[in-house]
């Protein structure tokens, strides 16, 4: 299912949460990367009809989100960044209720509820009260509710925030498994989540699209700009001020840094093969410098 976003703007007074976003999501699993406050959640909430934009146009499968929000909701599964359920209900009861709200006929509802519980591996705990669930189980229940009604579009906002590494990996794998023939829009600030699952992605920075393309294209943006070098601990501050440090570790009392920079930093960096995280920083770093120059 194709998503087309044209010159989308959302202003909160003087704050520009989204500032002329245009994006084409052809389908498949698509990642939306960006730091906190970039406007990802605002974009998601507009997509799922919870929020009205200031201007611009969004269509999902040809349906105008602003004009026909009710139709969009019929083909939508949504997992917000923060959500909860009625704690006194069991997972089965909660899903059964949500199934009704999603207009699933009674017979199909029972079958679907059992299927999604199985899908997210909650069948054994289906009769337990949600109040007794762990954070990971609640996230999986969130996926289960989103899958009800077999939606053509799944919008997932920061799903792994707050999960431990094991839960995060399990959750990511689950997303890949269920993506199948659907369009999954995954918003996150964790590059590894996108790297592991998405066929396309966009980077959002300060309410604007900094990059849109495939993960490979994003990696290419960093090619020739990723360096590894060793510095004395006292040099770290000076280096970090001039280049973007991707990672650092201590080796034999010295710091081994991986940095993104247009030129060899300090003249002693060794060029290395770029990754998606480097590409992300390269893109966002460019944007950052451009932004600073504009202000100057």
């Amino acid at each position: 299912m194709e998503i087309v976003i044209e010159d989308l703007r959302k202003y909160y007074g003087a704050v520009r949460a989204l500032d002329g976003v245009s994006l084409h999501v052809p389908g498949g699993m698509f990642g939306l990367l960006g730091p906190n406050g970039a406007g990802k959640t605002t974009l998601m909430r507009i997509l799922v009809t919870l929020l009205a934009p200031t201007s611009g146009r969004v269509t999902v499968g040809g349906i105008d989100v602003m004009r026909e929000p009710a139709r969009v909701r019929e083909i939508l599964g949504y997992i917000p960044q923060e959500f909860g359920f009625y704690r006194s209900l069991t997972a089965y009861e909660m899903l059964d209720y949500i199934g009704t709200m999603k207009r699933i006929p009674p017979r199909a509802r029972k079958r679907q509820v059992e299927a999604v519980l199985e899908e997210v591996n909650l069948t054994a705990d289906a009769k337990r009260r949600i109040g007794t669930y762990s954070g990971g189980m609640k996230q999986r229940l969130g996926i289960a509710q989103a899958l009800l009604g077999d939606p053509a579009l799944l919008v997932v906002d920061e799903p792994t925030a707050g999960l431990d590494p094991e839960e995060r990996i399990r959750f990511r794998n689950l997303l890949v498994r269920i993506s199948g023939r659907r369009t999954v829009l995954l918003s996150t600030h964790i590059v590894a989540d996108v790297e592991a699952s998405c066929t396309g992605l966009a980077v959002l920075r300060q309410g604007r699209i900094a990059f849109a393309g495939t993960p490979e294209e994003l990696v290419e943006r960093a090619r020739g700009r990723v360096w590894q070098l060793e510095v004395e601990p006292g040099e770290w501050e000076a280096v970090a001020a001039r280049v973007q440090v991707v990672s650092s570790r201590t080796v034999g009392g010295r710091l081994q840094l991986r940095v993104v920079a247009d030129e060899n930093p300090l003249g002693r960096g060794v060029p290395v093969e770029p990754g998606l995280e480097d590409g992300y920083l390269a893109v966002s770093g460019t944007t950052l410098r451009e932004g600073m120059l504009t202000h100057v």
Partner: protein
Amino acid sequence: MSSLLARALIAWRLELRLLVRHWAYPLLLAAWSAFVIYVFRDQAVISPEAALNRDLGHFSIGISSLAALLLGAAGAGRSQRTRFASLEESYPTGAEVLLGRWLAGVVALLPTQVAAVAIAGRAGPASSLWRGLPTFVLEATITVAFCTAVGWLLVSWLGPRRWVYPLLAGGWLGCLGLPVFLGRRNLGIPGAELLDFMRSDTGSYEELWGRLFEGALPVWFNLFYAGLAALGVALVVARVAARRRRRAPLVPAALALAALVVAAASATAYVQQVRAWEARAVDRGKPRPLPGPGDLATAAVETIDAWEIAVDLTDPASPRFDARFTLRNAGSEPITAATLTLHRDLAITMSSLPYARDGDVLTLTLSEPLAPGATRDLRLAYAGPIWAFIAGFDQTPYPVTFTAADGVRLAHSGGWYPVPGRMLAPPDWSEPTHPPAAFHLAVTVPEGWGVFSNLPATGDTTFASERATWVVLFASPRLRTEQVGASTIVAPEALLPRARALVPDYEALLADLARYFPGPAPKGLTFAVLDTLPGTAAYTPPAGDQPLVIMSGTTPRDLKKYPLNRRYVMGDALAADLWGLAGGAPELPFLFHVVQESLWARHVAGGDPERFRREVTDALGGGQADPAVVALAKIEARRGEDGVRQVIARMIAEQQTLRGLAPAELAAWIEEAGGAR
């Protein structure tokens, strides 16, 4: 079942489940029920219907309104509190979920009325409970629906903030006094009681009439709050729909407008009725010069010796009267016109003489002068609804005479039959209406209706007396007449058991008191338990050869617990009628008072001489005694009940010569008459 309805039902069911399975819910029910039971633990309940329509029911609904405000707010904020809102709003649902959830809040609160229903039900009979229950449940539902809608509306606008709850509770407390502050006794805004959404007013229910004399006020009141409840919900729906559908919420807005129109129209109708009644109550009840007792015979030169009135109540709201009466010139000069009083609302359809009307005053032009002492038979037919009001202590207008589809109350001074002279009495005046005269009354009522008149019954619906000084006519589908031994009881169906239980007590007291009066002791009495409105003469002359006791419908059930009530409605009432049956004149109260005091003291003492002495010597309170009562006690001490009977017989025989005696002189007379001197 459509998908829409299914979603509403499922949302309703889930919300109801969340509410009733919450740990606080049973606590809320227990606390509310305990409060109702505690407040009404010692209060007498007249009948289940009365209890539900008056204090108990209104109190229960009133305190539930607070719970409804809070629970409405809690229900409205649940999705946001549990962070389910963002999921919920992404589902393809509409207003049906909101409506289902709001309705669940309303239903969840209805069990708060169970305690009131249980207390009312204990008063029995079941028929009364079933009759009162639908209205009670409907009114409780309307109040709860309104308050829940207010809670929803507030949280929808302000969000689920903690301070919403104290705000609602504070608002509820503030509204407690609002109708009083704005009402008749303060700012005087007509219809301010309409703001009393918690129904803190005790209501005007009467067992005999139900809520008949509230007129259409309850209908407008309920419609007003039903409209406001619908308005509140429609506004919430409109707001949600506008946000979720991104277009003008035309249907919810139209519904909100319709609800607003219903509420506004109801409020207008309510205020209009209050104003109309107030205007009539002031008009009919303003102070007028009242004739004193005994002045009636001379208040007019014309008098009526006999009435024969047929009342057709087939259409109770607009009765038809056919009055034949004998007019006599009681003056010393011939008269060419007779001045009578007939209620202005009654339209004359036939008159045997030409007439002119000026308000309640009816002037008949005689075809030839009527000589002093001469009589003339006349006929007058009239018809129409008749309503007369008085202003209550809080200036609330109450109809004391009315003709309605559910009951007819023709009070003795209501002007429903032509009375000689200008009847100066306002409708609540409790003295007799006219000089003694023959009165024959025949009533036609719808099937199943009961009829009561203060006149002795000569058939199921016919009454007659040769010395009637006032006549009332009550007719109601609730009124029942029953023979209990030698006594006749007349009461609303629900009060019959209570009246029946009192008869042996009355008969025993009657036998006890009758020994002291000359003549044969009456066999039984006519005992009516009616309503709490004025409109019957305070002094109720005997019905034929039986004492007539008319008791208020709210008189305490167990009179033994309330000595003053017992004395007033039993001792004084019977003694007065025994005095009358023996020939004593009602207009000589100072004479009768002596007998009354003495006999009651004796009855209370129950054969204990010391207590009898105490009762007599402290008859006026503070150790003060009436010397005449002391004198009568002396007679009893010396000569027993024969001596007292002899004194009372002489007192009645010589009553006119005793007029004007001072207490000490009367005491001396009693001692002399009883042979104590």
